[in-house]
Protein backbone atom coordinates (compact mmCIF):
# COMPACT_ATOMS: atom_id res chain seq x y z
CA UNK A 1 0.00 0.00 0.00
CA UNK A 2 1.76 3.14 -1.13
CA UNK A 3 0.87 6.62 0.06
CA UNK A 4 -0.41 7.83 -3.30
CA UNK A 5 -2.75 4.92 -3.93
CA UNK A 6 -6.35 5.81 -4.51
CA UNK A 7 -8.81 3.90 -2.36
CA UNK A 8 -10.33 2.13 -5.35
CA UNK A 9 -6.95 0.44 -5.92
CA UNK A 10 -7.13 -1.26 -2.52
CA UNK A 11 -7.88 -4.92 -1.90
CA UNK A 12 -10.84 -6.00 0.24
CA UNK A 13 -8.40 -6.66 3.08
CA UNK A 14 -6.95 -3.14 2.83
CA UNK A 15 -10.37 -1.49 2.60
CA UNK A 16 -11.61 -3.42 5.63
CA UNK A 17 -8.54 -2.42 7.63
CA UNK A 18 -8.84 1.25 6.67
CA UNK A 19 -12.53 1.31 7.53
CA UNK A 20 -11.89 -0.35 10.88
CA UNK A 21 -9.11 2.11 11.70
CA UNK A 22 -11.41 4.94 10.56
CA UNK A 23 -8.75 6.24 8.16
CA UNK A 24 -11.46 6.66 5.53
CA UNK A 25 -15.16 5.99 5.12
CA UNK A 26 -17.11 3.68 2.85
CA UNK A 27 -18.31 6.81 1.06
CA UNK A 28 -14.65 7.72 0.32
CA UNK A 29 -13.91 4.30 -1.19
CA UNK A 30 -17.21 4.24 -3.07
CA UNK A 31 -16.67 7.71 -4.52
CA UNK A 32 -13.18 6.75 -5.67
CA UNK A 33 -14.67 3.72 -7.43
CA UNK A 34 -17.40 5.83 -9.03
CA UNK A 35 -14.81 8.36 -10.21
CA UNK A 36 -12.72 5.59 -11.66
CA UNK A 37 -15.83 4.30 -13.47
CA UNK A 38 -16.63 7.79 -14.82
CA UNK A 39 -13.10 8.25 -16.05
CA UNK A 40 -12.71 4.87 -17.73
CA UNK A 41 -16.09 3.60 -18.84
CA UNK A 42 -16.00 5.33 -22.20
CA UNK A 43 -13.02 3.11 -23.05
CA UNK A 44 -13.76 -0.05 -21.10
CA UNK A 45 -17.55 -0.52 -21.05
CA UNK A 46 -17.31 -2.86 -18.07
CA UNK A 47 -20.69 -1.89 -16.64
CA UNK A 48 -24.22 -2.09 -17.99
CA UNK A 49 -25.80 -0.25 -15.07
CA UNK A 50 -24.40 2.01 -12.35
CA UNK A 51 -27.04 3.83 -10.36
CA UNK A 52 -25.10 6.50 -8.54
CA UNK A 53 -27.74 7.57 -6.00
CA UNK A 54 -28.43 3.97 -4.99
CA UNK A 55 -24.72 3.34 -4.64
CA UNK A 56 -24.04 6.44 -2.54
CA UNK A 57 -27.06 5.67 -0.37
CA UNK A 58 -25.66 2.24 0.46
CA UNK A 59 -22.24 3.69 1.32
CA UNK A 60 -23.76 6.35 3.59
CA UNK A 61 -25.88 3.71 5.35
CA UNK A 62 -22.77 1.63 5.93
CA UNK A 63 -20.92 4.61 7.38
CA UNK A 64 -23.74 5.43 9.75
CA UNK A 65 -23.88 1.79 10.90
CA UNK A 66 -20.18 1.94 11.59
CA UNK A 67 -20.45 5.27 13.42
CA UNK A 68 -22.99 3.63 15.73
CA UNK A 69 -20.70 0.64 16.23
CA UNK A 70 -23.04 -1.77 14.47
CA UNK A 71 -21.31 -3.07 11.35
CA UNK A 72 -22.93 -6.11 9.79
CA UNK A 73 -19.75 -7.97 8.89
CA UNK A 74 -16.15 -7.34 7.88
CA UNK A 75 -17.40 -6.66 4.35
CA UNK A 76 -19.57 -3.76 5.54
CA UNK A 77 -18.96 -0.80 3.24
CA UNK A 78 -16.87 -2.62 0.62
CA UNK A 79 -17.90 -1.87 -3.00
CA UNK A 80 -18.74 -5.00 -4.99
CA UNK A 81 -19.66 -5.23 -8.68
CA UNK A 82 -22.20 -7.86 -9.72
CA UNK A 83 -22.38 -9.63 -13.05
CA UNK A 84 -25.59 -8.64 -14.78
CA UNK A 85 -27.08 -12.14 -14.73
CA UNK A 86 -27.75 -11.99 -10.98
CA UNK A 87 -30.96 -10.38 -9.83
CA UNK A 88 -30.62 -7.23 -7.76
CA UNK A 89 -33.93 -5.81 -6.63
CA UNK A 90 -34.72 -2.50 -8.32
CA UNK A 91 -31.53 -2.63 -10.45
CA UNK A 92 -32.12 -3.41 -14.13
CA UNK A 93 -30.76 -6.93 -14.69
CA UNK A 94 -30.29 -7.80 -18.33
CA UNK A 95 -28.00 -10.85 -18.63
CA UNK A 96 -26.43 -8.89 -21.50
CA UNK A 97 -29.49 -9.54 -23.66
CA UNK A 98 -31.95 -7.36 -25.49
CA UNK A 99 -34.68 -9.72 -24.33
CA UNK A 100 -34.14 -8.50 -20.73
CA UNK A 101 -33.18 -4.92 -21.57
CA UNK A 102 -35.94 -3.40 -19.45
CA UNK A 103 -36.24 -6.11 -16.83
CA UNK A 104 -36.15 -4.92 -13.22
CA UNK A 105 -36.24 -7.82 -10.73
CA UNK A 106 -38.56 -7.70 -7.77
CA UNK A 107 -36.20 -9.83 -5.67
CA UNK A 108 -32.54 -10.31 -4.85
CA UNK A 109 -30.50 -13.31 -5.90
CA UNK A 110 -29.36 -15.37 -2.90
CA UNK A 111 -25.77 -14.15 -3.26
CA UNK A 112 -26.94 -10.54 -3.48
CA UNK A 113 -29.05 -11.03 -0.38
CA UNK A 114 -25.97 -12.42 1.38
CA UNK A 115 -23.89 -9.43 0.32
CA UNK A 116 -26.58 -6.99 1.41
CA UNK A 117 -26.82 -8.75 4.76
CA UNK A 118 -23.07 -8.32 5.15
CA UNK A 119 -23.33 -4.60 4.36
CA UNK A 120 -21.41 -4.63 1.07
CA UNK A 121 -22.06 -1.74 -1.32
CA UNK A 122 -23.39 -2.92 -4.67
CA UNK A 123 -21.73 -0.57 -7.08
CA UNK A 124 -23.17 -1.74 -10.38
CA UNK A 125 -24.03 -4.48 -12.80
CA UNK A 126 -21.26 -5.66 -15.09
CA UNK A 127 -21.25 -6.41 -18.79
CA UNK A 128 -21.21 -9.99 -20.02
CA UNK A 129 -21.74 -12.16 -23.04
CA UNK A 130 -25.45 -12.58 -23.74
CA UNK A 131 -26.77 -15.04 -21.14
CA UNK A 132 -23.12 -15.82 -20.32
CA UNK A 133 -22.63 -17.48 -23.69
CA UNK A 134 -19.19 -16.62 -24.91
CA UNK A 135 -15.53 -16.24 -24.02
CA UNK A 136 -14.98 -12.62 -25.02
CA UNK A 137 -17.92 -10.46 -23.84
CA UNK A 138 -18.43 -9.60 -27.51
CA UNK A 139 -21.91 -11.13 -27.67
CA UNK A 140 -23.35 -8.60 -25.19
CA UNK A 141 -26.28 -6.60 -26.51
CA UNK A 142 -24.66 -3.60 -24.81
CA UNK A 143 -21.41 -3.67 -26.78
CA UNK A 144 -18.04 -5.33 -26.08
CA UNK A 145 -16.01 -4.73 -22.96
CA UNK A 146 -12.34 -3.89 -23.61
CA UNK A 147 -9.29 -5.30 -21.92
CA UNK A 148 -7.60 -2.62 -19.77
CA UNK A 149 -4.18 -4.04 -20.69
CA UNK A 150 -4.84 -3.39 -24.38
CA UNK A 151 -8.04 -1.73 -25.53
CA UNK A 152 -7.95 -3.56 -28.85
CA UNK A 153 -8.26 -6.87 -27.07
CA UNK A 154 -11.12 -8.74 -25.44
CA UNK A 155 -11.29 -9.08 -21.65
CA UNK A 156 -12.35 -12.73 -21.97
CA UNK A 157 -15.79 -13.85 -20.96
CA UNK A 158 -18.40 -14.32 -20.20
CA UNK A 159 -17.75 -12.42 -16.93
CA UNK A 160 -15.61 -9.90 -18.84
CA UNK A 161 -17.20 -6.86 -17.20
CA UNK A 162 -16.58 -8.16 -13.68
CA UNK A 163 -12.95 -9.02 -14.47
CA UNK A 164 -12.33 -5.58 -16.00
CA UNK A 165 -14.09 -3.76 -13.15
CA UNK A 166 -11.62 -5.36 -10.74
CA UNK A 167 -8.53 -5.14 -12.98
CA UNK A 168 -9.15 -1.46 -13.76
CA UNK A 169 -9.95 -0.60 -10.12
CA UNK A 170 -13.54 0.36 -10.82
CA UNK A 171 -14.63 -1.90 -7.98
CA UNK A 172 -12.81 -3.53 -5.08
CA UNK A 173 -14.12 -6.96 -6.00
CA UNK A 174 -16.83 -8.59 -8.10
CA UNK A 175 -19.02 -11.63 -8.53
CA UNK A 176 -19.03 -13.62 -11.74
CA UNK A 177 -20.58 -16.87 -12.89
CA UNK A 178 -18.74 -19.79 -14.44
CA UNK A 179 -20.35 -22.45 -16.64
CA UNK A 180 -17.30 -23.47 -18.67
CA UNK A 181 -14.64 -21.02 -17.51
CA UNK A 182 -16.52 -17.72 -17.44
CA UNK A 183 -14.93 -16.57 -14.17
CA UNK A 184 -11.45 -18.02 -14.63
CA UNK A 185 -10.72 -17.18 -18.26
CA UNK A 186 -11.55 -13.44 -18.04
CA UNK A 187 -9.61 -13.31 -14.75
CA UNK A 188 -6.68 -14.82 -16.64
CA UNK A 189 -6.99 -12.36 -19.55
CA UNK A 190 -7.24 -9.36 -17.21
CA UNK A 191 -4.59 -10.34 -14.66
CA UNK A 192 -6.84 -10.84 -11.64
CA UNK A 193 -7.96 -13.78 -9.47
CA UNK A 194 -11.09 -15.73 -10.41
CA UNK A 195 -12.46 -18.60 -8.35
CA UNK A 196 -15.13 -21.12 -9.35
CA UNK A 197 -16.27 -22.95 -6.19
CA UNK A 198 -17.42 -26.56 -5.98
CA UNK A 199 -20.76 -27.16 -7.69
CA UNK A 200 -23.38 -26.82 -4.97
CA UNK A 201 -21.35 -24.53 -2.70
CA UNK A 202 -23.05 -21.30 -3.76
CA UNK A 203 -26.77 -21.02 -4.41
CA UNK A 204 -27.82 -20.00 -7.91
CA UNK A 205 -31.22 -18.77 -6.83
CA UNK A 206 -31.61 -15.51 -8.74
CA UNK A 207 -28.84 -16.31 -11.22
CA UNK A 208 -30.33 -16.39 -14.70
CA UNK A 209 -29.74 -20.00 -15.64
CA UNK A 210 -27.61 -20.90 -18.62
CA UNK A 211 -26.67 -24.57 -18.12
CA UNK A 212 -27.90 -25.58 -14.70
CA UNK A 213 -25.77 -28.69 -14.25
CA UNK A 214 -22.63 -26.56 -14.73
CA UNK A 215 -23.39 -22.97 -13.59
CA UNK A 216 -21.63 -21.76 -10.47
CA UNK A 217 -21.20 -18.28 -8.93
CA UNK A 218 -17.86 -17.14 -7.58
CA UNK A 219 -15.57 -14.20 -6.77
CA UNK A 220 -13.27 -12.15 -9.00
CA UNK A 221 -10.74 -10.26 -6.90
CA UNK A 222 -7.27 -8.73 -6.79
CA UNK A 223 -5.78 -11.36 -4.47
CA UNK A 224 -6.47 -14.96 -3.46
CA UNK A 225 -7.06 -13.83 0.10
CA UNK A 226 -9.83 -11.51 -1.15
CA UNK A 227 -11.37 -14.37 -3.14
CA UNK A 228 -11.53 -16.37 0.06
CA UNK A 229 -13.16 -13.50 1.99
CA UNK A 230 -15.84 -13.06 -0.66
CA UNK A 231 -16.35 -16.80 -1.07
CA UNK A 232 -16.92 -17.23 2.68
CA UNK A 233 -19.62 -14.59 2.48
CA UNK A 234 -21.62 -16.29 -0.26
CA UNK A 235 -21.07 -19.98 0.51
CA UNK A 236 -24.18 -20.95 2.43
CA UNK A 237 -27.02 -23.44 2.19
CA UNK A 238 -30.13 -22.23 0.39
CA UNK A 239 -33.25 -24.35 0.12
CA UNK A 240 -34.31 -22.41 -2.96
CA UNK A 241 -31.54 -24.01 -5.04
CA UNK A 242 -32.09 -27.77 -5.06
CA UNK A 243 -28.41 -28.33 -5.85
CA UNK A 244 -27.30 -26.32 -2.81
CA UNK A 245 -25.47 -29.03 -0.88
CA UNK A 246 -25.90 -28.68 2.86
CA UNK A 247 -23.51 -31.48 3.81
CA UNK A 248 -20.89 -30.33 1.34
CA UNK A 249 -21.06 -26.76 2.58
CA UNK A 250 -20.48 -27.99 6.12
CA UNK A 251 -17.34 -29.81 5.06
CA UNK A 252 -15.95 -26.77 3.19
CA UNK A 253 -15.39 -24.94 6.45
CA UNK A 254 -13.40 -27.84 7.84
CA UNK A 255 -10.89 -28.23 5.02
CA UNK A 256 -8.60 -25.43 6.01
CA UNK A 257 -5.16 -24.86 7.40
CA UNK A 258 -2.02 -23.39 6.03
CA UNK A 259 -0.70 -25.52 3.23
CA UNK A 260 2.99 -26.11 3.02
CA UNK A 261 4.29 -26.32 -0.52
CA UNK A 262 6.81 -28.83 0.74
CA UNK A 263 5.64 -32.31 -0.22
CA UNK A 264 2.52 -30.95 -1.84
CA UNK A 265 1.50 -33.39 -4.54
CA UNK A 266 0.86 -31.54 -7.75
CA UNK A 267 -0.36 -33.13 -10.96
CA UNK A 268 0.49 -31.25 -14.11
CA UNK A 269 -1.69 -31.95 -17.11
CA UNK A 270 0.37 -33.37 -19.95
CA UNK A 271 -1.83 -31.61 -22.49
CA UNK A 272 -1.43 -28.33 -20.63
CA UNK A 273 1.79 -27.84 -22.51
CA UNK A 274 0.88 -29.43 -25.80
CA UNK A 275 -0.01 -28.08 -29.19
CA UNK A 276 -2.31 -25.11 -29.26
CA UNK A 277 -0.84 -23.57 -26.11
CA UNK A 278 1.04 -20.35 -26.88
CA UNK A 279 4.77 -20.48 -26.16
CA UNK A 280 4.66 -17.51 -23.81
CA UNK A 281 1.86 -19.02 -21.76
CA UNK A 282 3.71 -22.33 -21.63
CA UNK A 283 6.94 -20.65 -20.53
CA UNK A 284 5.37 -18.70 -17.65
CA UNK A 285 3.50 -21.69 -16.31
CA UNK A 286 6.51 -24.03 -16.64
CA UNK A 287 8.68 -21.51 -14.77
CA UNK A 288 6.19 -21.40 -11.91
CA UNK A 289 6.03 -25.18 -11.79
CA UNK A 290 9.85 -25.27 -11.58
CA UNK A 291 9.72 -22.83 -8.68
CA UNK A 292 7.19 -25.03 -6.91
CA UNK A 293 9.57 -27.97 -7.26
CA UNK A 294 12.31 -25.89 -5.63
CA UNK A 295 9.93 -25.17 -2.78
CA UNK A 296 9.65 -28.90 -2.27
CA UNK A 297 6.44 -29.71 -4.12
CA UNK A 298 6.28 -33.11 -5.75
CA UNK A 299 5.25 -32.42 -9.30
CA UNK A 300 4.27 -35.21 -11.65
CA UNK A 301 2.89 -35.23 -15.13
CA UNK A 302 -0.56 -36.73 -15.35
CA UNK A 303 -2.52 -37.82 -18.35
CA UNK A 304 -6.28 -38.14 -18.14
CA UNK A 305 -7.12 -39.83 -21.41
CA UNK A 306 -10.84 -39.10 -21.30
CA UNK A 307 -10.22 -35.35 -20.86
CA UNK A 308 -9.72 -35.02 -24.57
CA UNK A 309 -13.49 -35.46 -24.82
CA UNK A 310 -14.29 -32.78 -22.22
CA UNK A 311 -14.97 -30.00 -24.71
CA UNK A 312 -17.18 -32.24 -26.80
CA UNK A 313 -19.14 -33.18 -23.67
CA UNK A 314 -19.48 -29.50 -22.81
CA UNK A 315 -20.65 -28.45 -26.24
CA UNK A 316 -23.43 -31.04 -26.10
CA UNK A 317 -24.63 -30.71 -22.50
CA UNK A 318 -24.46 -26.93 -22.38
CA UNK A 319 -26.59 -26.13 -25.45
CA UNK A 320 -29.16 -28.77 -24.52
CA UNK A 321 -29.59 -27.12 -21.12
CA UNK A 322 -29.52 -23.65 -22.70
CA UNK A 323 -32.24 -24.65 -25.11
CA UNK A 324 -34.43 -25.69 -22.22
CA UNK A 325 -33.54 -22.84 -19.83
CA UNK A 326 -34.08 -20.11 -22.37
CA UNK A 327 -37.54 -21.43 -23.15
CA UNK A 328 -38.88 -19.18 -20.40
CA UNK A 329 -38.22 -16.03 -22.43
CA UNK A 330 -41.40 -15.92 -24.43
CA UNK A 331 -42.60 -12.31 -24.35
CA UNK A 332 -45.42 -13.10 -21.93
CA UNK A 333 -44.35 -12.83 -18.29
CA UNK A 334 -41.41 -10.41 -18.46
CA UNK A 335 -38.72 -9.19 -20.77
CA UNK A 336 -38.91 -7.98 -24.33
CA UNK A 337 -42.24 -8.56 -26.05
CA UNK A 338 -43.42 -7.70 -29.53
CA UNK A 339 -46.76 -6.93 -27.94
CA UNK A 340 -45.27 -3.55 -27.16
CA UNK A 341 -44.26 -2.89 -30.77
CA UNK A 342 -46.85 -1.02 -32.75
CA UNK A 343 -45.57 -1.71 -36.23
CA UNK A 344 -45.35 -5.50 -35.96
CA UNK A 345 -48.37 -7.53 -36.95
CA UNK A 346 -49.18 -10.17 -34.37
CA UNK A 347 -51.80 -12.73 -35.28
CA UNK A 348 -51.85 -15.02 -32.29
CA UNK A 349 -50.06 -16.26 -29.19
CA UNK A 350 -47.54 -18.27 -31.20
CA UNK A 351 -46.57 -15.09 -33.00
CA UNK A 352 -45.85 -13.40 -29.66
CA UNK A 353 -43.51 -16.22 -28.67
CA UNK A 354 -41.69 -16.51 -31.97
CA UNK A 355 -41.37 -12.84 -32.82
CA UNK A 356 -40.35 -11.82 -29.28
CA UNK A 357 -37.66 -14.51 -29.15
CA UNK A 358 -36.48 -13.79 -32.68
CA UNK A 359 -36.06 -10.09 -31.97
CA UNK A 360 -34.88 -10.52 -28.39
CA UNK A 361 -32.09 -13.09 -28.70
CA UNK A 362 -28.71 -12.50 -30.34
CA UNK A 363 -26.96 -14.84 -32.77
CA UNK A 364 -25.00 -16.91 -30.23
CA UNK A 365 -28.10 -17.57 -28.12
CA UNK A 366 -30.06 -18.63 -31.20
CA UNK A 367 -27.29 -20.90 -32.41
CA UNK A 368 -27.03 -22.66 -29.05
CA UNK A 369 -30.81 -22.97 -28.64
CA UNK A 370 -31.08 -24.67 -32.02
CA UNK A 371 -28.03 -26.86 -31.48
CA UNK A 372 -29.39 -27.92 -28.09
CA UNK A 373 -32.78 -28.73 -29.56
CA UNK A 374 -31.08 -30.90 -32.15
CA UNK A 375 -28.85 -32.77 -29.68
CA UNK A 376 -31.79 -33.58 -27.43
CA UNK A 377 -34.37 -34.39 -30.08
CA UNK A 378 -35.83 -37.82 -30.71
CA UNK A 379 -33.44 -39.87 -32.78
CA UNK A 380 -30.35 -37.98 -31.61
CA UNK A 381 -30.67 -37.83 -27.84
CA UNK A 382 -28.89 -41.19 -27.33
CA UNK A 383 -26.08 -40.35 -29.68
CA UNK A 384 -25.43 -36.86 -28.31
CA UNK A 385 -26.97 -35.89 -24.99
CA UNK A 386 -27.06 -39.22 -23.17
CA UNK A 387 -23.65 -40.23 -24.50
CA UNK A 388 -22.21 -36.88 -23.35
CA UNK A 389 -23.79 -37.36 -19.91
CA UNK A 390 -22.12 -40.74 -19.60
CA UNK A 391 -18.74 -39.47 -20.70
CA UNK A 392 -19.17 -36.69 -18.11
CA UNK A 393 -19.60 -39.33 -15.39
CA UNK A 394 -16.45 -41.02 -16.64
CA UNK A 395 -14.51 -37.73 -16.49
CA UNK A 396 -15.67 -37.26 -12.93
CA UNK A 397 -14.57 -40.78 -12.00
CA UNK A 398 -11.14 -40.21 -13.53
CA UNK A 399 -10.68 -37.00 -11.53
CA UNK A 400 -11.69 -38.83 -8.35
CA UNK A 401 -8.91 -41.34 -8.99
CA UNK A 402 -6.37 -38.59 -9.63
CA UNK A 403 -7.29 -36.78 -6.41
CA UNK A 404 -6.62 -39.94 -4.41
CA UNK A 405 -2.96 -39.30 -5.17
CA UNK A 406 -2.68 -35.58 -5.80
CA UNK A 407 -3.63 -32.46 -3.86
CA UNK A 408 -4.24 -30.28 -6.90
CA UNK A 409 -3.91 -30.20 -10.66
CA UNK A 410 -2.14 -27.30 -12.34
CA UNK A 411 -2.47 -26.09 -15.92
CA UNK A 412 -2.66 -22.83 -17.81
CA UNK A 413 -6.12 -21.28 -17.43
CA UNK A 414 -6.38 -20.59 -21.14
CA UNK A 415 -4.15 -21.67 -24.04
CA UNK A 416 -3.59 -18.05 -25.06
CA UNK A 417 -3.45 -14.53 -23.69
CA UNK A 418 -6.25 -12.08 -24.58
CA UNK A 419 -7.02 -12.12 -28.30
CA UNK A 420 -8.11 -9.20 -30.44
CA UNK A 421 -11.71 -8.05 -30.71
CA UNK A 422 -13.33 -9.74 -33.68
CA UNK A 423 -10.45 -12.18 -34.07
CA UNK A 424 -12.51 -15.29 -33.37
CA UNK A 425 -15.51 -15.00 -35.62
CA UNK A 426 -15.93 -18.74 -36.09
CA UNK A 427 -17.79 -20.18 -33.07
CA UNK A 428 -15.81 -23.41 -32.93
CA UNK A 429 -12.44 -21.62 -32.70
CA UNK A 430 -13.82 -19.59 -29.79
CA UNK A 431 -15.08 -22.77 -28.11
CA UNK A 432 -11.67 -24.48 -28.30
CA UNK A 433 -10.21 -21.83 -25.98
CA UNK A 434 -12.25 -23.34 -23.11
CA UNK A 435 -10.23 -26.54 -23.16
CA UNK A 436 -8.62 -26.19 -19.71
CA UNK A 437 -11.52 -24.62 -17.86
CA UNK A 438 -14.44 -26.83 -18.92
CA UNK A 439 -13.37 -30.06 -17.09
CA UNK A 440 -13.83 -28.47 -13.63
CA UNK A 441 -17.45 -27.62 -14.52
CA UNK A 442 -18.14 -31.09 -15.82
CA UNK A 443 -16.77 -32.69 -12.65
CA UNK A 444 -18.05 -29.96 -10.28
CA UNK A 445 -14.54 -29.19 -8.99
CA UNK A 446 -13.31 -26.01 -7.30
CA UNK A 447 -10.87 -24.25 -9.59
CA UNK A 448 -9.05 -20.94 -9.43
CA UNK A 449 -7.12 -18.80 -11.89
CA UNK A 450 -4.33 -16.64 -10.51
CA UNK A 451 -2.06 -14.19 -12.38
CA UNK A 452 1.16 -15.80 -13.57
CA UNK A 453 3.21 -13.01 -15.12
CA UNK A 454 2.77 -11.45 -18.52
CA UNK A 455 3.71 -12.08 -22.11
CA UNK A 456 4.13 -9.00 -24.32
CA UNK A 457 2.28 -6.94 -21.75
CA UNK A 458 -0.67 -9.34 -21.55
CA UNK A 459 -1.48 -11.32 -18.40
CA UNK A 460 -1.19 -15.11 -18.21
CA UNK A 461 -3.34 -17.17 -15.85
CA UNK A 462 -2.39 -20.28 -13.89
CA UNK A 463 -5.22 -22.63 -12.99
CA UNK A 464 -5.29 -24.69 -9.81
CA UNK A 465 -8.02 -27.31 -9.50
CA UNK A 466 -8.85 -29.50 -6.52
CA UNK A 467 -11.29 -32.13 -5.33
CA UNK A 468 -14.91 -31.33 -4.66
CA UNK A 469 -15.48 -29.54 -1.32
CA UNK A 470 -11.77 -28.86 -0.90
CA UNK A 471 -12.34 -25.22 -1.82
CA UNK A 472 -10.41 -23.93 1.19
CA UNK A 473 -7.50 -26.20 0.42
CA UNK A 474 -7.41 -25.00 -3.19
CA UNK A 475 -7.53 -21.40 -1.96
CA UNK A 476 -4.69 -21.85 0.53
CA UNK A 477 -2.54 -23.62 -2.05
CA UNK A 478 -3.33 -20.80 -4.48
CA UNK A 479 -2.26 -18.29 -1.86
CA UNK A 480 1.07 -20.08 -1.41
CA UNK A 481 1.61 -20.22 -5.17
CA UNK A 482 0.61 -16.56 -5.53
CA UNK A 483 3.40 -15.74 -3.07
CA UNK A 484 5.92 -17.78 -5.05
CA UNK A 485 4.89 -16.04 -8.28
CA UNK A 486 5.11 -12.55 -6.81
CA UNK A 487 8.62 -13.38 -5.59
CA UNK A 488 9.45 -14.45 -9.13
CA UNK A 489 8.48 -11.18 -10.78
Amino acid sequence: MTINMKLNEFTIKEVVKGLEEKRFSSLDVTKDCLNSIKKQEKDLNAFITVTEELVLKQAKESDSRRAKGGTLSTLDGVPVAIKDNMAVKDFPTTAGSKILEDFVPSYDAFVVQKLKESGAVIIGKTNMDEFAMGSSTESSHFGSTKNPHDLERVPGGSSGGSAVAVAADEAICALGSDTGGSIRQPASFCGVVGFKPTYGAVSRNGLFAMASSLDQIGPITKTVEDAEILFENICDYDKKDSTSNEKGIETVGKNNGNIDLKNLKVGVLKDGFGDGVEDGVKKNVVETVERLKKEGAIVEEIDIEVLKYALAVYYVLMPVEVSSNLGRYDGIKYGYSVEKEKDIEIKNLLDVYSKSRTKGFGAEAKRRIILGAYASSAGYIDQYYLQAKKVAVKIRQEFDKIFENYDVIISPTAPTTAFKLGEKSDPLSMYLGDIFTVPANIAGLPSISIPCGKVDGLPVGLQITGQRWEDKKVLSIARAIEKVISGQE
Partner: protein
Amino acid sequence: MKLSKEQIEKLAGLVRLELSEEEKERFSGEIASILSYVEKLGEVDVKGIELDGVEISNIYGKDKSEPCEISQAELLKNAPMTEDGFIKVKSVLE
Protein backbone atom coordinates in the same frame (compact mmCIF):
# COMPACT_ATOMS: atom_id res chain seq x y z
CA MET B 1 -22.74 -33.52 -42.09
CA LYS B 2 -24.56 -30.33 -42.96
CA LEU B 3 -28.09 -29.92 -41.68
CA SER B 4 -30.63 -29.57 -44.42
CA LYS B 5 -32.65 -26.41 -44.75
CA GLU B 6 -35.76 -28.40 -43.80
CA GLN B 7 -34.08 -29.69 -40.63
CA ILE B 8 -33.05 -26.19 -39.56
CA GLU B 9 -36.52 -24.86 -40.27
CA LYS B 10 -38.13 -27.64 -38.26
CA LEU B 11 -35.79 -27.08 -35.30
CA ALA B 12 -36.31 -23.31 -35.41
CA GLY B 13 -40.06 -23.88 -35.34
CA LEU B 14 -39.74 -26.16 -32.30
CA VAL B 15 -37.78 -23.57 -30.34
CA ARG B 16 -40.00 -20.71 -31.53
CA LEU B 17 -37.48 -18.80 -33.58
CA GLU B 18 -37.91 -17.29 -37.02
CA LEU B 19 -34.70 -17.42 -39.04
CA SER B 20 -33.81 -15.39 -42.08
CA GLU B 21 -32.51 -17.22 -45.17
CA GLU B 22 -29.03 -15.95 -44.34
CA GLU B 23 -29.28 -17.26 -40.77
CA LYS B 24 -30.53 -20.66 -41.95
CA GLU B 25 -27.54 -20.98 -44.23
CA ARG B 26 -25.02 -19.76 -41.64
CA PHE B 27 -26.40 -21.78 -38.70
CA SER B 28 -26.59 -24.97 -40.69
CA GLY B 29 -22.88 -24.68 -41.52
CA GLU B 30 -21.83 -23.64 -38.02
CA ILE B 31 -23.93 -26.25 -36.28
CA ALA B 32 -22.62 -28.91 -38.65
CA SER B 33 -19.03 -28.05 -37.76
CA ILE B 34 -19.83 -28.21 -34.04
CA LEU B 35 -21.62 -31.55 -34.53
CA SER B 36 -18.70 -33.01 -36.42
CA TYR B 37 -16.43 -31.92 -33.55
CA VAL B 38 -18.61 -33.61 -30.91
CA GLU B 39 -19.00 -36.73 -33.06
CA LYS B 40 -15.92 -38.20 -31.36
CA LEU B 41 -17.91 -38.76 -28.16
CA GLY B 42 -19.05 -41.98 -29.79
CA GLU B 43 -15.52 -43.39 -29.43
CA VAL B 44 -15.73 -43.48 -25.63
CA ASP B 45 -16.64 -46.80 -24.07
CA VAL B 46 -19.39 -46.01 -21.58
CA LYS B 47 -20.48 -49.57 -20.82
CA GLY B 48 -21.60 -49.92 -17.23
CA ILE B 49 -21.93 -46.20 -16.58
CA GLU B 50 -25.16 -45.36 -14.84
CA LEU B 51 -26.65 -41.91 -14.99
CA ASP B 52 -28.70 -42.16 -11.82
CA GLY B 53 -27.52 -41.29 -8.34
CA VAL B 54 -24.44 -39.25 -9.14
CA GLU B 55 -23.75 -37.52 -5.82
CA ILE B 56 -27.06 -35.69 -5.60
CA SER B 57 -30.56 -36.94 -6.13
CA ASN B 58 -33.89 -35.21 -6.45
CA ILE B 59 -34.88 -32.97 -3.61
CA TYR B 60 -38.58 -32.44 -3.25
CA GLY B 61 -40.15 -29.52 -1.45
CA LYS B 62 -43.04 -30.09 0.90
CA ASP B 63 -46.41 -29.58 -0.74
CA LYS B 64 -47.12 -26.64 1.50
CA SER B 65 -47.83 -23.04 0.56
CA GLU B 66 -45.59 -20.35 1.97
CA PRO B 67 -46.22 -16.63 2.05
CA CYS B 68 -44.49 -14.72 -0.72
CA GLU B 69 -42.87 -11.46 0.33
CA ILE B 70 -43.29 -9.99 -3.15
CA SER B 71 -46.66 -8.42 -3.92
CA GLN B 72 -48.74 -9.39 -6.93
CA ALA B 73 -48.41 -5.87 -8.34
CA GLU B 74 -44.62 -6.04 -8.09
CA LEU B 75 -44.51 -9.42 -9.78
CA LEU B 76 -46.72 -8.24 -12.60
CA LYS B 77 -44.91 -5.00 -13.26
CA ASN B 78 -42.55 -6.69 -15.71
CA ALA B 79 -45.34 -8.32 -17.73
CA PRO B 80 -46.02 -6.60 -21.06
CA MET B 81 -49.83 -6.89 -20.85
CA THR B 82 -51.95 -7.29 -17.74
CA GLU B 83 -55.59 -6.96 -16.86
CA ASP B 84 -57.25 -7.14 -13.43
CA GLY B 85 -54.17 -8.71 -11.85
CA PHE B 86 -53.76 -11.30 -14.58
CA ILE B 87 -51.27 -11.60 -17.40
CA LYS B 88 -53.08 -11.01 -20.64
CA VAL B 89 -52.18 -13.01 -23.75
CA LYS B 90 -53.14 -13.01 -27.38
CA SER B 91 -55.69 -15.51 -28.58
CA VAL B 92 -54.29 -18.97 -29.10
CA LEU B 93 -56.13 -19.43 -32.38
CA GLU B 94 -56.64 -16.86 -35.07
